C-alpha cells in the first residue's frame, strides 16, 4: 500500500465518521439485515403538524415496484381522510343510514380531509392534472377516498417508479380511530397511500388489477409491504410514538422537534402525540415495550405490561416469532375514546378507564387483541376490505386462546362478585345469542353486511368456528395448521383458499380421512354458508321387556305361554336425537345408565332424526350431546341434554334467589317513605 492511498483511506474514514455523527445527517439504522417482505411500497415522508389548525402539511417520496407481469399504466391511491370530509362520503352515508351497524350514529364534530397538492415523478414530470377521483365500490360521486393517476408511460414488470407527492390534510375530531381530541393526536390513514396491485398468485386474482377500495364504515385496510422513513415535526412539548423505531430527535429553533422514525417490512405507518403521555418502558426478551399512558390511567400500566408480555410469549409459542424489535402501546384519553382499539404494525391503541376493576379484563383483552393484529393483518397481510374475518376473526380466536391461557377459561373476561366468564365464552355467546344467526355469512366484503351482523359474524362467529375446528381436530393439529399458515404466508397476502388448503393438507397428514376426504364441508357451512347448528335430545324411553305370554302358533300347534314372575328386569332403552338446524357436525353423545355406567357414541350428525337403542338390565338415566363441549356452534345449549328424572334443585336455587331479591327490592322501596 503506498503513502497516497493510506492518506486517502484515513481521509475517507474521517469523513464518513463525521457524517455519521453529525445530527440530522445520520443514516437510518437498519432494522433487519435481510428484508422480511417484498418491500415494494416504500415511503419517505416529511410531515409537519400545526396543533392550532390540526393541519398536516407533508411531502412523501413513494418508491413503488411493479411485482406483477403486467405493464401498469395507472396507479391508485387511498385518501382515507376524505371519508370525514362531508356527510355524503361513502363512510358517512353507510354510518348514518345504518348500512354499517358498527359505526351507526357516528357523527363528525370537526371535518377532516386530505388534498394532494402535487404529484410528480422523480424526474420532474407533473402528474397532478391526471389525478381523478374514482369510486370502484359504489359509484358514489361524493366519495373522494380513492384517486387514480394515469401514467405517461407504463411501469414495466419488475421496474420501479418514484413519485414525489405533496399533500395537505386536516385531521378530524377523533372519529373511527383517527384524529385529535384536545391535545391528543392519533394520526392514522393520513397520507396518500398506494393500493395493492393484485395479480395471479395473490388471493383469488385471476388477472392483474388494482385492489383499492373506498373507505367504508365497516372496513379497515389493505396494503403492500415497505420501508417507511418518516420525519414528524410538531411543538416541542409533545411526546410522540409511532410505527417502527425512533431514529433521532432534532430540536429545532422554532420551538418544534422533529422525530425521525423508520419502519421496515410493515404495511402502514401511524403515529400519536400528546404532551400528557406518561411513558412506561419495559422489555420482553429482546423486544422493547413502550407504553404511552394517560396520567390518570398510570396505575393500570402493570396490567398492560403483564398482558403484552403474555401475548408476546403466547403468539411466539403458538404461531410464530415476533420479528420486530419493539412495540408501542398508546392509551387514548376518555375524549379520544374513538381512537382506542386500533392496530398498526408494532403500534396499537388500547382502551382503559380510570381505576378499571381488576375483575374486568377488558383492558387486557384489548391489549392482547390489538397486539395480535401484528400477526393477523400485520404479518399475514390479508385484505381487510374483502376478508375481514381473516384478520379480525382469526385474531379473535387467538385473543381468546391467549386470554383464557393467561387468566383462566371461565374468568378471563369478567370476574366480578361471582359473575364471571371467559373470552371464548364471551365470543361464543355473542354468536349463539344472535337474534338472527343467519343474517350473513362470513365470506363477504366488509361493506356488504347491509343487514347488520358485521361485528358478531366477523369477530365472534369466526372465533367460535375456529375454536370448534380446533376441538374437532385437536389442539396439536390446529397448532400445526396455524403455524404452517403463518410460516407459509407471512409477509404475503393470504386469502381464504390459501388457509383452507393448509387445513386440508395438515388434516390429511395427521388425521387421514377421519371426517371425510377433506374439511371443505366445514368451511362450506360456516365460512361460505350461513347454516345454523342445533341438535336436540328429543326423548328418552325405557320400556320394560315383557316375557312372552299368550297363545302363539308354532308348527301348526297353538302353544300357550304363561307369564312367570321373575326378579330379572330387562329393558329396551332408546333415545332420539333430532337435528333441528341445517348444519351437519359429527357429534359425540354421552349416555349414562342406571348402573352408573357410561358410554360415548360417535354420530355423523347427518340424519334429521336418529334413534339409538340399547337392550339389557340397565335403563338410560340421561343423555348428553357433545359432552366434551367440542361443538361450540350449537345455538341452543339447553336442548343438548335430557334426564329421565326431572331434578328441581337448580329451579329451587334460582326461585329462592329471585324471592329474596323481590323481598329486598320491596323493602328498599318502602324505606324511602
Amino acid at each position, binding site marked *: 500500500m503506498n503513502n497516497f492511498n493510506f492518506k486517502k483511506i484515513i481521509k475517507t474514514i474521517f469523513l464518513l465518521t463525521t457524517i455519521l455523527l453529525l445530527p440530522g445527517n445520520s443514516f437510518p439504522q437498519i432494522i433487519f439485515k435481510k428484508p422480511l417482505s417484498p418491500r415494494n411500497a416504500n415511503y419517505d415522508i416529511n410531515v409537519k403538524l400545526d396543533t392550532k389548525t390540526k393541519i398536516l402539511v407533508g411531502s412523501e417520496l413513494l418508491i413503488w415496484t411493479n411485482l406483477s407481469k403486467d405493464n401498469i399504466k395507472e396507479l391508485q391511491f387511498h385518501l382515507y381522510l376524505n371519508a370525514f370530509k362531508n356527510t355524503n362520503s361513502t363512510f358517512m352515508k353507510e354510518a348514518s343510514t345504518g348500512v354499517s351497524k358498527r359505526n351507526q350514529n357516528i357523527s363528525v364534530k370537526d371535518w377532516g380531509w386530505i388534498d394532494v397538492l402535487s404529484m410528480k415523478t422523480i424526474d420532474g414530470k407533473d402528474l397532478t392534472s391526471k389525478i381523478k377521483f374514482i369510486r370502484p365500490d359504489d359509484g358514489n360521486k361524493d366519495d373522494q377516498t380513492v384517486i387514480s393517476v394515469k401514467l405517461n408511460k407504463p411501469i414495466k414488470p419488475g421496474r420501479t417508479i418514484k413519485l414525489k407527492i405533496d399533500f395537505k390534510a386536516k385531521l378530524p375530531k377523533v372519529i373511527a380511530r383517527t384524529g385529535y381530541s*384536545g391535545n391528543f393526536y392519533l394520526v392514522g390513514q393520513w397520507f396518500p397511500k398506494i393500493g395493492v396491485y393484485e395479480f395471479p398468485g395473490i388471493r383469488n386474482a385471476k388477472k392483474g388489477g388494482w385492489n383499492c377500495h373506498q373507505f367504508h364504515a365497516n372496513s379497515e385496510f389493505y396494503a403492500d409491504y415497505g420501508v417507511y422513513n418518516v420525519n414528524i415535526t410538531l411543538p416541542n412539548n409533545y411526546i410522540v410514538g409511532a410505527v417502527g423505531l425512533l431514529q433521532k430527535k432534532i430540536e429545532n429553533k422554532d420551538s418544534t422537534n422533529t422525530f425521525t422514525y423508520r419502519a421496515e417490512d410493515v404495511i402502514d405507518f401511524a403515529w400519536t402525540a400528546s404532551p*400528557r403521555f406518561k411513558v412506561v418502558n419495559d422489555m420482553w426478551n429482546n423486544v422493547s415495550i413502550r407504553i404511552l399512558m*394517560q*396520567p*390518570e390511567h398510570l396505575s393500570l400500566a402493570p396490567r398492560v405490561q403483564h398482558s403484552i408480555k403474555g401475548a408476546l410469549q403466547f403468539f411466539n409459542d403458538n404461531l410464530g416469532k415476533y420479528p420486530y424489535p419493539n412495540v408501542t402501546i398508546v392509551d387514548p*384519553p*376518555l*375524549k379520544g375514546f374513538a381512537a382506542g382499539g386500533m392496530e398498526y404494525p408494532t403500534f396499537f391503541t388500547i382502551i382503559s*378507564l*380510570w*381505576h378499571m376493576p381488576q375483575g374486568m379484563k377488558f383492558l387486557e383483552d384489548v391489549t392482547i387483541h390489538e397486539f395480535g393484529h401484528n400477526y393477523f393483518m400485520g404479518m399475514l397481510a390479508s385484505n381487510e376490505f374483502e376478508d375481514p374475518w381473516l384478520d379480525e376473526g382469526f385474531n379473535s380466536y387467538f385473543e381468546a386462546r391467549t386470554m383464557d391461557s393467561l387468566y383462566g377459561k*371461565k374468568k378471563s373476561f369478567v370476574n366480578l362478585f*361471582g*359473575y*364471571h*366468564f*371467559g373470552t371464548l*365464552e*364471551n365470543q*361464543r*355467546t355473542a354468536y*349463539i*345469542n344472535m337474534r338472527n344467526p343467519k343474517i350473513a355469512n362470513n365470506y363477504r366484503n366488509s361493506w356488504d353486511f347491509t343487514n347488520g351482523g358485521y361485528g358478531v359474524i366477523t369477530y365472534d362467529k369466526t372465533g367460535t368456528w375456529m375454536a370448534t375446528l380446533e376441538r374437532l381436530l385437536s389442539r396439536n393439529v390446529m397448532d400445526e395448521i396455524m403455524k404452517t399458515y403463518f410460516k407459509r404466508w407471512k409477509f404475503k397476502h393470504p386469502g381464504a383458499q390459501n388457509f383452507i388448503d393448509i387445513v386440508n393438507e395438515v388434516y390429511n397428514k395427521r388425521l387421514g380421512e377421519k371426517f371425510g376426504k377433506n374439511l371443505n364441508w366445514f368451511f362450506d357451512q360456516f365460512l361460505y354458508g350461513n347454516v345454523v347448528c342445533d341438535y336436540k335430545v328429543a326423548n328418552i324411553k325405557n320400556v320394560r321387556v315383557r316375557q312372552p305370554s299368550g297363545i302363539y302358533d308354532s308348527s301348526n300347534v297353538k302353544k300357550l305361554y304363561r307369564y312367570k314372575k321373575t326378579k330379572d328386569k330387562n329393558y329396551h332403552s332408546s333415545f332420539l336425537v333430532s337435528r333441528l338446524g341445517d348444519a351437519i357436525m359429527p357429534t359425540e353423545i354421552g349416555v349414562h345408565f342406571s348402573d352408573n355406567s357410561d358410554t360415548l357414541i360417535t354420530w355423523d350428525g347427518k340424519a334429521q332424526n336418529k334413534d339409538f337403542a340399547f337392550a339389557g338390565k340397565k335403563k338410560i338415566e*340421561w343423555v*348428553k350431546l357433545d359432552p366434551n363441549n367440542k361443538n361450540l356452534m350449537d345455538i*341452543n*345449549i*339447553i*336442548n*343438548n*341434554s*335430557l*334426564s329421565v*328424572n*326431572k331434578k*328441581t*334443585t*337448580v*329451579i*329451587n*336455587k*334460582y*326461585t*329462592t*334467589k*329471585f*324471592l*329474596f331479591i*323481590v*323481598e*329486598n*327490592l*320491596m*323493602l*328498599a*322501596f*318502602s*324505606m*324511602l*317513605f
Partner: protein
Amino acid sequence: MKFIKSYMLGITATFKRTKILFLLYIFTLLFALTAALPFKSAIANDIDSSMAAFKLLKDFDYPTYTNFMHLFGNTIKPLYKVALFLGVFYTIFSVFFSGGIISSFVNKEKSASLSKFWADSWTYLSRFFRLFIYILILQIIVALLVFFPVAAIISSINSSIQSEATYFYIAITGVIIYLFLLTIIILISDYTKIMMINDKALRPFRTMIRSFAYVFRHFFSVYGMNLLFIISGIILFIIYFFISDKVGMTSGFTIFVMFLIQQLFIICRLFLKISVYGGEVSLVNKIG
C-alpha cells in the same frame, strides 16, 4: 347520649311487637311469592328435564345462563316488571302499616294487639297517604335540585376536563349530597307521622313543616340515631354476605339452609324497620 338510649329502646320495644313483625313478614313473603311462584313455574317449564342447568348449580356458567335468557327470556322478563310493580305496591302497603306501628309505640302498648294495629293503620291511612305524596314530590324536587347544578358544573367545565376521574368526583359528590338529603327527607317523613299521631294532627303538610324544623333543631340526636340504624343495616348485610359465601347454594340441603337464612335476614330487616319507628318515638318523648 339520648339518641343511643332511644336506639336501644327502639330495639327492645320491637321485641315486644313480634306479632306485628311476623304479620309484616307474612305479607312481605306473600307479596314476593306472587312474583316468585310464576318465576319458578316459568323456569321449570323452560328448563324441563335438560341437564344444562346443572352447570348453574355448583357455579355460575355464563354460556348456559345467557343462552337460557336468550331462548326463554321473554317468559321471565315480564316477571321483573311484576317485581318492580310489587315494590311500588308494597310501598303503599307499608305507608298503610306505618300508622299501626307508630301508634303502638306512641300509645306505649306493652304488647301489640293486632286488632288495634289494624284499626290504627286504617285511621291514619288517608293522612299518611297524602304525606307520602308530599314526600314523593319533595324527593323529586331535591333530586332535580342536585341534578341540575351537577349537570351545569359538568357542562361548564366539560371542555377543559381531560380525565374521567373529574367526572367521577363531580358525580359522586352529587350522589353523596343527594343521599344525605334523601335521608333527611325520610327522617322528616318519619317525624311527621309521629307528630301527627302524637298531636292528632289532621293536616300533613303543616305537620311536615313542623317536622322539618324539628329535625334541624335536634339534628345531632335525630341524625345520630339514624346513622346508628344505617350502620346496623350495613352490619346485617355484611353478616348475610359472609354467611351466604360460606354456605353456598350447591345442593338441595344448602339451598334450603340459605332459604331459611335469607328469610331470617328479611325478618331482621323488618325488625330494624319497626325499631326505627320505636327509636324515633322514644327520642321524641325524651327530647320533646
